[in-house]
Protein backbone atom coordinates (compact mmCIF):
# COMPACT_ATOMS: atom_id res chain seq x y z
CA UNK A 1 0.00 0.00 0.00
CA UNK A 2 1.19 3.48 -0.80
CA UNK A 3 -0.18 6.87 0.03
CA UNK A 4 -0.62 10.03 -2.05
CA UNK A 5 1.11 12.91 -0.26
CA UNK A 6 0.08 15.62 -2.73
CA UNK A 7 -1.68 15.98 -6.07
CA UNK A 8 -1.78 18.44 -8.94
CA UNK A 9 -3.84 18.76 -12.12
CA UNK A 10 -3.06 21.23 -14.93
CA UNK A 11 -6.03 21.23 -17.31
CA UNK A 12 -8.53 23.50 -19.03
CA UNK A 13 -10.43 23.54 -15.71
CA UNK A 14 -7.57 24.94 -13.64
CA UNK A 15 -4.00 24.53 -12.48
CA UNK A 16 -4.54 22.86 -9.13
CA UNK A 17 -6.22 19.61 -8.06
CA UNK A 18 -8.55 21.62 -5.85
CA UNK A 19 -9.67 23.95 -8.68
CA UNK A 20 -10.21 20.99 -11.01
CA UNK A 21 -12.15 19.05 -8.40
CA UNK A 22 -14.28 22.11 -7.55
CA UNK A 23 -15.06 22.56 -11.26
CA UNK A 24 -16.14 18.92 -11.49
CA UNK A 25 -18.34 19.37 -8.42
CA UNK A 26 -19.97 22.35 -10.15
CA UNK A 27 -20.63 20.19 -13.22
CA UNK A 28 -18.26 22.28 -15.34
CA UNK A 29 -16.68 21.00 -18.56
CA UNK A 30 -13.46 22.19 -20.15
CA UNK A 31 -14.51 20.94 -23.59
CA UNK A 32 -14.85 23.65 -26.24
CA UNK A 33 -15.50 23.74 -30.02
CA UNK A 34 -12.26 23.31 -31.97
CA UNK A 35 -11.03 22.40 -35.45
CA UNK A 36 -9.04 19.39 -36.56
CA UNK A 37 -5.97 19.90 -38.83
CA UNK A 38 -8.22 19.65 -41.90
CA UNK A 39 -10.57 22.34 -40.57
CA UNK A 40 -13.38 19.98 -39.55
CA UNK A 41 -15.20 20.95 -36.33
CA UNK A 42 -14.37 18.86 -33.28
CA UNK A 43 -14.65 19.37 -29.52
CA UNK A 44 -11.51 19.53 -27.40
CA UNK A 45 -10.47 20.15 -23.82
CA UNK A 46 -7.88 22.78 -24.67
CA UNK A 47 -5.13 24.03 -22.38
CA UNK A 48 -4.69 27.79 -22.91
CA UNK A 49 -1.05 28.23 -24.02
CA UNK A 50 -0.64 31.77 -22.70
CA UNK A 51 -1.94 30.90 -19.25
CA UNK A 52 0.18 27.75 -19.25
CA UNK A 53 3.34 29.65 -20.12
CA UNK A 54 2.67 32.38 -17.53
CA UNK A 55 2.04 29.89 -14.75
CA UNK A 56 5.02 27.79 -15.83
CA UNK A 57 7.43 30.74 -15.87
CA UNK A 58 6.19 31.98 -12.51
CA UNK A 59 6.45 28.55 -10.85
CA UNK A 60 9.49 27.01 -12.56
CA UNK A 61 11.63 30.06 -13.53
CA UNK A 62 13.03 28.28 -16.60
CA UNK A 63 16.54 29.02 -17.84
CA UNK A 64 16.01 27.31 -21.20
CA UNK A 65 13.25 26.85 -23.79
CA UNK A 66 10.64 24.19 -23.07
CA UNK A 67 7.96 22.77 -25.36
CA UNK A 68 4.29 22.95 -24.37
CA UNK A 69 4.01 19.34 -23.11
CA UNK A 70 7.24 19.89 -21.14
CA UNK A 71 5.84 23.10 -19.62
CA UNK A 72 2.63 21.35 -18.54
CA UNK A 73 4.60 18.41 -17.14
CA UNK A 74 7.08 20.57 -15.19
CA UNK A 75 4.39 22.95 -13.89
CA UNK A 76 2.27 20.07 -12.61
CA UNK A 77 5.18 18.17 -11.06
CA UNK A 78 6.63 21.30 -9.51
CA UNK A 79 3.36 22.35 -7.85
CA UNK A 80 2.75 18.82 -6.48
CA UNK A 81 6.32 18.40 -5.22
CA UNK A 82 6.17 21.79 -3.45
CA UNK A 83 2.90 20.82 -1.77
CA UNK A 84 4.22 17.40 -0.72
CA UNK A 85 7.23 19.02 0.94
CA UNK A 86 9.55 16.18 -0.12
CA UNK A 87 13.15 16.55 -1.24
CA UNK A 88 12.96 15.93 -5.00
CA UNK A 89 16.76 15.95 -5.35
CA UNK A 90 17.16 13.04 -2.95
CA UNK A 91 18.56 9.74 -4.17
CA UNK A 92 15.54 8.22 -2.35
CA UNK A 93 13.06 10.01 -4.65
CA UNK A 94 12.10 8.48 -8.01
CA UNK A 95 10.34 10.01 -11.01
CA UNK A 96 7.91 8.21 -13.33
CA UNK A 97 6.61 9.80 -16.53
CA UNK A 98 3.38 8.58 -18.08
CA UNK A 99 2.85 9.74 -21.66
CA UNK A 100 1.69 8.29 -24.95
CA UNK A 101 3.16 10.82 -27.38
CA UNK A 102 5.16 13.42 -25.38
CA UNK A 103 6.82 15.83 -27.82
CA UNK A 104 5.36 14.21 -30.95
CA UNK A 105 4.38 17.63 -32.36
CA UNK A 106 8.09 18.20 -33.07
CA UNK A 107 7.80 15.69 -35.94
CA UNK A 108 5.75 18.28 -37.80
CA UNK A 109 8.29 21.07 -37.10
CA UNK A 110 11.48 19.90 -38.85
CA UNK A 111 13.36 23.12 -37.97
CA UNK A 112 12.47 23.18 -34.26
CA UNK A 113 16.13 23.54 -33.35
CA UNK A 114 15.81 21.58 -30.10
CA UNK A 115 17.99 18.67 -31.18
CA UNK A 116 17.16 15.20 -32.47
CA UNK A 117 16.82 13.66 -29.01
CA UNK A 118 14.06 16.03 -27.89
CA UNK A 119 11.28 13.92 -29.42
CA UNK A 120 12.18 10.86 -27.36
CA UNK A 121 10.12 10.06 -24.26
CA UNK A 122 13.24 9.14 -22.27
CA UNK A 123 14.50 12.65 -22.98
CA UNK A 124 11.26 14.19 -21.72
CA UNK A 125 11.51 12.08 -18.55
CA UNK A 126 15.14 13.19 -18.25
CA UNK A 127 14.05 16.85 -18.30
CA UNK A 128 11.58 16.07 -15.52
CA UNK A 129 14.21 14.55 -13.23
CA UNK A 130 16.80 17.20 -14.19
CA UNK A 131 14.44 20.04 -13.30
CA UNK A 132 14.51 18.79 -9.70
CA UNK A 133 18.24 17.92 -9.78
CA UNK A 134 17.22 14.31 -9.13
CA UNK A 135 20.16 11.91 -9.58
CA UNK A 136 18.12 8.79 -10.50
CA UNK A 137 17.29 7.48 -13.96
CA UNK A 138 13.61 8.36 -14.43
CA UNK A 139 11.22 5.72 -15.75
CA UNK A 140 8.85 6.24 -18.66
CA UNK A 141 5.68 4.15 -18.89
CA UNK A 142 3.93 4.20 -22.26
CA UNK A 143 1.08 1.73 -22.35
CA UNK A 144 -1.48 3.57 -24.51
CA UNK A 145 -4.49 4.91 -22.57
CA UNK A 146 -3.71 2.91 -19.42
CA UNK A 147 -0.27 4.53 -19.02
CA UNK A 148 -1.35 6.59 -15.99
CA UNK A 149 -2.52 3.46 -14.17
CA UNK A 150 0.56 1.47 -15.17
CA UNK A 151 2.72 4.34 -13.87
CA UNK A 152 0.98 4.24 -10.48
CA UNK A 153 1.43 0.46 -10.34
CA UNK A 154 5.15 1.04 -11.04
CA UNK A 155 5.23 3.54 -8.15
CA UNK A 156 3.52 0.98 -5.91
CA UNK A 157 6.18 -1.63 -6.72
CA UNK A 158 9.05 0.87 -6.34
CA UNK A 159 7.90 1.92 -2.88
CA UNK A 160 6.90 -1.53 -1.67
CA UNK A 161 10.25 -2.94 -2.79
CA UNK A 162 12.09 -0.18 -0.97
CA UNK A 163 13.66 1.25 -4.13
CA UNK A 164 12.62 4.76 -3.05
CA UNK A 165 10.93 6.60 -0.18
CA UNK A 166 8.97 8.92 -2.49
CA UNK A 167 7.85 8.54 -6.10
CA UNK A 168 6.57 11.39 -8.26
CA UNK A 169 4.20 10.15 -11.00
CA UNK A 170 3.46 12.73 -13.71
CA UNK A 171 1.24 12.13 -16.71
CA UNK A 172 1.08 14.44 -19.71
CA UNK A 173 -0.26 14.57 -23.25
CA UNK A 174 -1.31 17.40 -25.53
CA UNK A 175 -3.64 17.44 -28.53
CA UNK A 176 -1.04 17.70 -31.28
CA UNK A 177 -2.21 17.61 -34.92
CA UNK A 178 -0.70 14.13 -34.97
CA UNK A 179 -3.04 12.79 -32.28
CA UNK A 180 -6.14 14.68 -33.43
CA UNK A 181 -5.68 13.55 -37.05
CA UNK A 182 -5.17 9.98 -35.88
CA UNK A 183 -8.31 9.78 -33.76
CA UNK A 184 -10.22 11.56 -36.53
CA UNK A 185 -9.03 8.94 -39.05
CA UNK A 186 -10.47 6.32 -36.71
CA UNK A 187 -13.79 8.20 -36.83
CA UNK A 188 -13.86 8.02 -33.05
CA UNK A 189 -14.32 11.74 -32.24
CA UNK A 190 -17.65 13.25 -31.21
CA UNK A 191 -17.91 16.76 -32.75
CA UNK A 192 -19.81 17.80 -29.60
CA UNK A 193 -19.16 17.19 -25.91
CA UNK A 194 -19.00 13.43 -25.36
CA UNK A 195 -21.74 11.42 -23.64
CA UNK A 196 -20.24 8.46 -21.77
CA UNK A 197 -22.61 5.49 -21.34
CA UNK A 198 -25.47 7.43 -22.97
CA UNK A 199 -27.63 5.97 -25.75
CA UNK A 200 -26.61 8.86 -28.06
CA UNK A 201 -22.87 8.57 -27.46
CA UNK A 202 -20.91 9.09 -30.67
CA UNK A 203 -17.30 9.04 -29.66
CA UNK A 204 -14.67 10.69 -27.55
CA UNK A 205 -13.15 14.16 -27.12
CA UNK A 206 -9.41 14.59 -26.80
CA UNK A 207 -8.21 16.42 -23.71
CA UNK A 208 -4.96 18.18 -22.87
CA UNK A 209 -3.60 17.88 -19.36
CA UNK A 210 -0.75 17.14 -17.02
CA UNK A 211 -1.35 15.58 -13.63
CA UNK A 212 0.92 14.54 -10.78
CA UNK A 213 0.66 12.39 -7.68
CA UNK A 214 3.50 12.31 -5.15
CA UNK A 215 3.42 8.94 -3.41
CA UNK A 216 5.00 7.86 -0.16
CA UNK A 217 4.68 4.75 2.00
CA UNK A 218 1.27 4.19 3.55
CA UNK A 219 0.90 4.89 7.27
CA UNK A 220 -2.62 3.59 7.83
CA UNK A 221 -4.13 7.08 7.62
CA UNK A 222 -5.93 8.91 4.83
CA UNK A 223 -6.13 7.33 1.39
CA UNK A 224 -3.95 4.60 -0.05
CA UNK A 225 -3.46 2.87 -3.37
CA UNK A 226 -3.89 -0.73 -2.30
CA UNK A 227 -3.51 -2.82 -5.43
CA UNK A 228 -3.47 -2.59 -9.20
CA UNK A 229 -3.21 -5.01 -12.09
CA UNK A 230 -2.98 -4.98 -15.87
CA UNK A 231 -4.39 -7.72 -18.10
CA UNK A 232 -4.69 -8.09 -21.89
CA UNK A 233 -7.74 -8.98 -24.00
CA UNK A 234 -5.70 -10.98 -26.54
CA UNK A 235 -8.44 -10.00 -28.96
CA UNK A 236 -7.76 -6.95 -31.12
CA UNK A 237 -5.15 -4.16 -31.21
CA UNK A 238 -7.67 -1.31 -31.59
CA UNK A 239 -11.04 -2.74 -30.56
CA UNK A 240 -12.12 -3.85 -27.10
CA UNK A 241 -12.97 -7.46 -26.31
CA UNK A 242 -16.63 -8.41 -26.67
CA UNK A 243 -16.42 -10.30 -23.40
CA UNK A 244 -14.50 -7.58 -21.55
CA UNK A 245 -11.90 -10.29 -20.96
CA UNK A 246 -8.85 -8.29 -19.96
CA UNK A 247 -10.75 -5.74 -17.86
CA UNK A 248 -12.70 -8.50 -16.09
CA UNK A 249 -9.45 -10.27 -15.25
CA UNK A 250 -7.68 -7.05 -14.15
CA UNK A 251 -10.64 -6.33 -11.85
CA UNK A 252 -10.79 -9.88 -10.47
CA UNK A 253 -7.07 -9.86 -9.62
CA UNK A 254 -7.34 -6.42 -8.02
CA UNK A 255 -10.55 -6.89 -5.99
CA UNK A 256 -9.81 -10.47 -4.96
CA UNK A 257 -12.48 -11.40 -2.38
CA UNK A 258 -13.34 -7.82 -1.36
CA UNK A 259 -17.14 -7.76 -0.88
CA UNK A 260 -18.46 -5.79 -3.83
CA UNK A 261 -20.95 -3.87 -1.67
CA UNK A 262 -18.04 -2.21 0.16
CA UNK A 263 -17.07 -0.33 -3.01
CA UNK A 264 -18.35 3.26 -3.15
CA UNK A 265 -17.93 3.75 -6.90
CA UNK A 266 -16.06 2.94 -10.08
CA UNK A 267 -14.47 5.81 -11.97
CA UNK A 268 -14.66 4.06 -15.34
CA UNK A 269 -12.65 4.69 -18.49
CA UNK A 270 -15.98 5.73 -20.14
CA UNK A 271 -14.57 7.24 -23.33
CA UNK A 272 -18.06 7.47 -24.89
CA UNK A 273 -17.15 5.35 -27.88
CA UNK A 274 -19.83 2.78 -28.58
CA UNK A 275 -17.64 -0.28 -28.08
CA UNK A 276 -15.61 0.86 -25.08
CA UNK A 277 -18.55 1.72 -22.85
CA UNK A 278 -20.39 -1.49 -23.74
CA UNK A 279 -17.27 -3.56 -23.10
CA UNK A 280 -16.90 -1.98 -19.65
CA UNK A 281 -20.50 -2.85 -18.77
CA UNK A 282 -19.84 -6.49 -19.64
CA UNK A 283 -16.61 -6.59 -17.63
CA UNK A 284 -18.14 -4.82 -14.58
CA UNK A 285 -21.11 -7.21 -14.60
CA UNK A 286 -18.84 -10.25 -14.88
CA UNK A 287 -16.80 -8.93 -11.94
CA UNK A 288 -19.96 -8.64 -9.79
CA UNK A 289 -20.07 -4.84 -10.02
CA UNK A 290 -23.35 -4.39 -11.90
CA UNK A 291 -24.91 -2.55 -8.91
CA UNK A 292 -21.87 -0.40 -8.05
CA UNK A 293 -22.29 3.28 -8.99
CA UNK A 294 -20.26 4.15 -12.11
CA UNK A 295 -19.22 7.48 -13.57
CA UNK A 296 -16.91 8.76 -16.27
CA UNK A 297 -14.99 12.07 -16.09
CA UNK A 298 -14.45 12.30 -19.86
CA UNK A 299 -17.21 14.91 -20.40
CA UNK A 300 -15.31 17.22 -18.01
CA UNK A 301 -11.76 16.72 -19.25
CA UNK A 302 -11.95 14.79 -22.52
CA UNK A 303 -9.67 11.81 -22.92
CA UNK A 304 -6.38 13.11 -21.57
CA UNK A 305 -4.47 10.00 -22.77
CA UNK A 306 -1.19 9.59 -20.86
CA UNK A 307 -2.48 11.91 -18.12
CA UNK A 308 -5.92 10.25 -17.83
CA UNK A 309 -5.03 7.55 -15.32
CA UNK A 310 -3.35 10.07 -13.03
CA UNK A 311 -5.87 12.91 -13.43
CA UNK A 312 -8.98 10.76 -13.02
CA UNK A 313 -7.48 8.95 -10.03
CA UNK A 314 -6.89 12.31 -8.33
CA UNK A 315 -10.50 13.45 -8.84
CA UNK A 316 -11.69 10.04 -7.59
CA UNK A 317 -9.51 10.21 -4.48
CA UNK A 318 -10.78 13.72 -3.73
CA UNK A 319 -14.36 12.46 -4.05
CA UNK A 320 -13.51 9.60 -1.68
CA UNK A 321 -12.00 12.10 0.80
CA UNK A 322 -15.29 14.01 0.69
CA UNK A 323 -17.39 10.83 0.90
CA UNK A 324 -19.07 11.63 -2.40
CA UNK A 325 -20.11 9.73 -5.51
CA UNK A 326 -19.91 12.08 -8.52
CA UNK A 327 -22.54 12.18 -11.27
CA UNK A 328 -21.52 11.04 -14.75
CA UNK A 329 -21.64 14.25 -16.82
CA UNK A 330 -23.22 13.82 -20.26
CA UNK A 331 -25.27 10.78 -19.32
CA UNK A 332 -29.02 11.08 -19.79
CA UNK A 333 -30.49 8.05 -21.52
CA UNK A 334 -29.50 4.44 -20.75
CA UNK A 335 -27.44 3.20 -23.66
CA UNK A 336 -25.73 0.07 -22.48
CA UNK A 337 -26.99 -3.44 -23.05
CA UNK A 338 -27.29 -5.29 -19.77
CA UNK A 339 -27.37 -2.02 -17.86
CA UNK A 340 -25.10 -0.45 -15.28
CA UNK A 341 -25.73 1.72 -12.22
CA UNK A 342 -24.63 4.99 -13.85
CA UNK A 343 -24.42 7.76 -11.26
CA UNK A 344 -26.70 10.71 -12.11
CA UNK A 345 -26.45 12.91 -9.01
CA UNK A 346 -23.99 13.78 -6.25
CA UNK A 347 -24.61 11.23 -3.51
CA UNK A 348 -22.95 10.84 -0.11
CA UNK A 349 -21.31 7.55 0.79
CA UNK A 350 -19.63 6.05 3.86
CA UNK A 351 -17.97 3.26 1.89
CA UNK A 352 -14.21 3.10 2.00
CA UNK A 353 -13.15 1.57 -1.33
CA UNK A 354 -13.11 2.95 -4.87
CA UNK A 355 -11.98 1.55 -8.22
CA UNK A 356 -10.37 3.30 -11.19
CA UNK A 357 -10.30 1.45 -14.51
CA UNK A 358 -8.73 2.19 -17.88
CA UNK A 359 -8.52 0.33 -21.19
CA UNK A 360 -6.40 1.04 -24.22
CA UNK A 361 -5.12 0.19 -27.67
CA UNK A 362 -3.03 -2.94 -27.74
CA UNK A 363 -5.77 -4.70 -25.75
CA UNK A 364 -4.49 -3.54 -22.36
CA UNK A 365 -6.73 -2.97 -19.34
CA UNK A 366 -5.95 -1.72 -15.84
CA UNK A 367 -7.79 -1.71 -12.53
CA UNK A 368 -6.67 0.22 -9.43
CA UNK A 369 -8.12 -0.11 -5.92
CA UNK A 370 -7.91 2.80 -3.46
CA UNK A 371 -9.18 2.87 0.09
CA UNK A 372 -9.61 5.40 2.84
CA UNK A 373 -8.59 4.51 6.36
CA UNK A 374 -10.31 7.30 8.22
Amino acid at each position, binding site marked *: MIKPLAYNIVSSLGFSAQDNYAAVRRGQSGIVPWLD*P*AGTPIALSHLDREKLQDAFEKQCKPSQKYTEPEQAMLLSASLAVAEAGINPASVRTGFVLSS*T*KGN*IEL*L*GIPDHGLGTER*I*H*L*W*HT*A*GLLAAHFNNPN*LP*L*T*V*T*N*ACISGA*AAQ*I*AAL*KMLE*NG*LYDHVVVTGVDMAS*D*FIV*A*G*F*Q*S*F*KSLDPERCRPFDARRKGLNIGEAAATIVFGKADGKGISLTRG*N*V*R*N*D*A*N*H*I*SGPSRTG*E*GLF*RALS*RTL*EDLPRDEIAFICAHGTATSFNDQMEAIAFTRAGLQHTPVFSLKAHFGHTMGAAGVLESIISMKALEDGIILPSLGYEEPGIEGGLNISTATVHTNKRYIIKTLS*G*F*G*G*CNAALLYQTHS
Partner: protein
Amino acid sequence: MKKITAYSRITDSLVILNGKPCEITFSCEPGPGRLAEIYRFLESGYPKFFKMDNLSKAGFLASEMVLRSLHYDMESPDESTAVVFANRSSSLDNDKRFQETISREDYFPSPAVFVYTLPNIVTGEVAIRNKILGETSFFILESFDAEKMMIFVDWAFASAGTRRVLCGWTEYLDGHCDVLVMMVEKESDQGVDYNKQNINNIYIT
Protein backbone atom coordinates in the same frame (compact mmCIF):
# COMPACT_ATOMS: atom_id res chain seq x y z
CA MET B 1 14.52 -20.65 -9.17
CA LYS B 2 13.97 -18.22 -12.04
CA LYS B 3 15.47 -19.29 -15.36
CA ILE B 4 15.73 -17.90 -18.86
CA THR B 5 14.26 -20.87 -20.70
CA ALA B 6 14.65 -19.51 -24.24
CA TYR B 7 15.95 -16.36 -25.87
CA SER B 8 16.28 -14.82 -29.29
CA ARG B 9 18.09 -11.92 -30.84
CA ILE B 10 17.39 -10.06 -34.09
CA THR B 11 19.78 -7.34 -35.26
CA ASP B 12 20.50 -5.86 -38.69
CA SER B 13 22.82 -8.74 -39.49
CA LEU B 14 22.01 -11.57 -37.05
CA VAL B 15 19.14 -13.87 -36.16
CA ILE B 16 19.97 -15.96 -33.10
CA LEU B 17 17.87 -18.47 -31.18
CA ASN B 18 19.11 -19.84 -27.85
CA GLY B 19 22.67 -18.83 -28.67
CA LYS B 20 22.75 -20.41 -32.13
CA PRO B 21 22.68 -18.33 -35.32
CA CYS B 22 19.79 -19.28 -37.62
CA GLU B 23 20.77 -20.58 -41.02
CA ILE B 24 19.04 -17.85 -42.92
CA THR B 25 20.54 -16.32 -46.04
CA PHE B 26 19.31 -12.80 -46.63
CA SER B 27 18.76 -11.77 -50.22
CA CYS B 28 18.19 -8.08 -49.39
CA GLU B 29 20.16 -5.37 -47.63
CA PRO B 30 19.59 -4.73 -43.89
CA GLY B 31 16.19 -3.07 -43.39
CA PRO B 32 12.47 -3.88 -43.30
CA GLY B 33 12.80 -6.41 -46.17
CA ARG B 34 14.79 -8.68 -43.90
CA LEU B 35 11.89 -8.92 -41.43
CA ALA B 36 9.76 -10.44 -44.21
CA GLU B 37 12.60 -12.84 -44.99
CA ILE B 38 12.75 -13.94 -41.34
CA TYR B 39 8.97 -14.39 -41.38
CA ARG B 40 9.21 -16.68 -44.40
CA PHE B 41 12.12 -18.55 -42.85
CA LEU B 42 10.06 -19.24 -39.71
CA GLU B 43 7.03 -20.38 -41.76
CA SER B 44 4.74 -18.70 -39.24
CA GLY B 45 1.65 -18.77 -41.46
CA TYR B 46 0.22 -15.60 -39.88
CA PRO B 47 -0.77 -13.19 -42.69
CA LYS B 48 -1.64 -10.43 -40.16
CA PHE B 49 2.13 -10.03 -39.91
CA PHE B 50 2.13 -8.00 -43.12
CA LYS B 51 -0.23 -5.39 -41.63
CA MET B 52 2.16 -4.70 -38.75
CA ASP B 53 4.64 -1.84 -38.50
CA ASN B 54 8.35 -2.68 -38.38
CA LEU B 55 8.56 -2.53 -34.56
CA SER B 56 5.68 -4.98 -34.19
CA LYS B 57 7.10 -7.22 -36.90
CA ALA B 58 10.49 -7.38 -35.21
CA GLY B 59 9.06 -8.02 -31.72
CA PHE B 60 6.59 -10.52 -33.10
CA LEU B 61 9.27 -12.52 -34.93
CA ALA B 62 11.62 -12.65 -31.95
CA SER B 63 8.69 -13.76 -29.75
CA GLU B 64 7.67 -16.42 -32.29
CA MET B 65 11.17 -17.89 -32.18
CA VAL B 66 11.21 -18.04 -28.37
CA LEU B 67 7.68 -19.38 -27.91
CA ARG B 68 7.99 -22.00 -30.66
CA SER B 69 11.26 -23.28 -29.26
CA LEU B 70 9.38 -23.77 -25.96
CA HIS B 71 6.41 -25.40 -27.75
CA TYR B 72 4.24 -22.72 -26.15
CA ASP B 73 0.54 -23.61 -26.37
CA MET B 74 -0.76 -20.72 -28.46
CA GLU B 75 -4.28 -22.15 -28.67
CA SER B 76 -5.21 -22.08 -24.97
CA PRO B 77 -6.03 -18.69 -23.42
CA ASP B 78 -3.63 -18.20 -20.52
CA GLU B 79 -3.42 -15.47 -17.89
CA SER B 80 -0.24 -16.77 -16.27
CA THR B 81 2.05 -15.36 -18.99
CA ALA B 82 3.00 -11.66 -19.04
CA VAL B 83 4.58 -9.68 -21.89
CA VAL B 84 6.90 -6.87 -20.79
CA PHE B 85 8.83 -5.00 -23.45
CA ALA B 86 10.94 -1.85 -23.48
CA ASN B 87 12.89 0.20 -26.00
CA ARG B 88 14.58 3.53 -26.70
CA SER B 89 12.63 5.03 -29.60
CA SER B 90 9.02 4.16 -28.74
CA SER B 91 7.08 3.87 -32.02
CA LEU B 92 9.04 6.70 -33.70
CA ASP B 93 9.79 4.58 -36.78
CA ASN B 94 6.08 4.31 -37.54
CA ASP B 95 5.27 7.79 -36.15
CA LYS B 96 7.34 9.22 -39.01
CA ARG B 97 5.24 7.26 -41.50
CA PHE B 98 2.02 8.62 -39.96
CA GLN B 99 3.40 12.17 -39.96
CA GLU B 100 3.89 11.87 -43.73
CA THR B 101 0.17 11.12 -44.16
CA ILE B 102 -0.78 14.40 -42.44
CA SER B 103 1.73 16.73 -44.10
CA ARG B 104 -0.28 19.81 -45.14
CA GLU B 105 -0.14 19.36 -48.91
CA ASP B 106 -1.35 15.79 -48.83
CA TYR B 107 -3.58 15.41 -45.76
CA PHE B 108 -4.90 11.88 -45.58
CA PRO B 109 -4.34 10.31 -42.15
CA SER B 110 -4.38 6.55 -42.29
CA PRO B 111 -6.04 4.65 -39.41
CA ALA B 112 -4.05 1.54 -40.36
CA VAL B 113 -0.81 3.47 -39.77
CA PHE B 114 -2.09 5.45 -36.75
CA VAL B 115 -2.91 2.34 -34.73
CA TYR B 116 0.80 1.45 -34.69
CA THR B 117 1.85 4.87 -33.33
CA LEU B 118 1.95 3.35 -29.83
CA PRO B 119 4.88 1.13 -28.84
CA ASN B 120 2.79 -1.21 -26.69
CA ILE B 121 0.89 -2.43 -29.77
CA VAL B 122 3.63 -5.02 -30.25
CA THR B 123 2.80 -6.51 -26.83
CA GLY B 124 -0.83 -6.69 -27.97
CA GLU B 125 0.16 -8.41 -31.23
CA VAL B 126 2.13 -11.05 -29.31
CA ALA B 127 -0.77 -11.46 -26.83
CA ILE B 128 -3.31 -11.93 -29.66
CA ARG B 129 -1.14 -14.41 -31.53
CA ASN B 130 -0.57 -16.55 -28.43
CA LYS B 131 -3.84 -15.93 -26.53
CA ILE B 132 -1.91 -14.34 -23.65
CA LEU B 133 -4.31 -12.73 -21.15
CA GLY B 134 -1.69 -11.74 -18.57
CA GLU B 135 -0.10 -8.34 -18.00
CA THR B 136 1.26 -6.45 -20.99
CA SER B 137 3.51 -3.48 -20.31
CA PHE B 138 5.85 -1.18 -22.20
CA PHE B 139 8.63 0.99 -20.79
CA ILE B 140 11.07 3.46 -22.35
CA LEU B 141 14.75 3.66 -21.44
CA GLU B 142 17.52 5.66 -23.07
CA SER B 143 19.47 2.48 -23.70
CA PHE B 144 19.37 -1.25 -22.99
CA ASP B 145 19.74 -1.86 -19.25
CA ALA B 146 19.68 -5.45 -17.98
CA GLU B 147 19.19 -4.34 -14.39
CA LYS B 148 16.10 -2.30 -15.26
CA MET B 149 14.71 -5.12 -17.40
CA MET B 150 15.02 -7.43 -14.39
CA ILE B 151 13.10 -4.93 -12.27
CA PHE B 152 10.28 -4.87 -14.85
CA VAL B 153 10.20 -8.67 -14.87
CA ASP B 154 10.02 -8.79 -11.08
CA TRP B 155 7.11 -6.32 -11.08
CA ALA B 156 5.23 -8.53 -13.54
CA PHE B 157 5.86 -11.58 -11.34
CA ALA B 158 4.43 -9.64 -8.38
CA SER B 159 1.03 -9.58 -10.12
CA ALA B 160 -0.95 -12.55 -8.79
CA GLY B 161 -0.95 -15.71 -10.90
CA THR B 162 2.00 -14.75 -13.14
CA ARG B 163 4.29 -17.74 -13.74
CA ARG B 164 6.32 -16.64 -16.75
CA VAL B 165 7.30 -13.34 -18.33
CA LEU B 166 8.14 -12.85 -21.98
CA CYS B 167 10.57 -9.97 -21.61
CA GLY B 168 11.98 -8.00 -24.48
CA TRP B 169 14.08 -5.10 -25.67
CA THR B 170 12.34 -4.24 -28.95
CA GLU B 171 14.03 -1.34 -30.70
CA TYR B 172 13.40 -0.51 -34.35
CA LEU B 173 14.18 2.84 -35.97
CA ASP B 174 15.00 3.96 -39.50
CA GLY B 175 15.69 0.46 -40.78
CA HIS B 176 17.84 -0.55 -37.82
CA CYS B 177 16.72 -3.45 -35.68
CA ASP B 178 17.92 -4.27 -32.15
CA VAL B 179 15.71 -6.88 -30.54
CA LEU B 180 16.17 -9.32 -27.67
CA VAL B 181 13.30 -11.44 -26.40
CA MET B 182 13.61 -13.94 -23.56
CA MET B 183 11.24 -16.12 -21.58
CA VAL B 184 11.76 -15.91 -17.84
CA GLU B 185 10.05 -18.70 -15.90
CA LYS B 186 9.39 -18.53 -12.18
CA GLU B 187 10.17 -22.13 -11.46
CA SER B 188 12.17 -24.13 -13.93
CA ASP B 189 15.15 -26.46 -13.73
CA GLN B 190 16.05 -25.88 -17.36
CA GLY B 191 17.64 -22.99 -19.15
CA VAL B 192 20.12 -20.30 -18.25
CA ASP B 193 20.29 -18.70 -14.81
CA TYR B 194 18.31 -15.49 -14.66
CA ASN B 195 20.88 -12.86 -13.77
CA LYS B 196 22.30 -9.59 -15.04
CA GLN B 197 25.47 -11.11 -16.45
CA ASN B 198 23.63 -13.70 -18.53
CA ILE B 199 21.18 -11.14 -19.85
CA ASN B 200 24.06 -8.86 -20.85
CA ASN B 201 25.82 -11.81 -22.52
CA ILE B 202 22.69 -12.58 -24.54
CA TYR B 203 22.41 -8.94 -25.55
CA ILE B 204 26.04 -8.57 -26.54
CA THR B 205 26.04 -11.60 -28.87
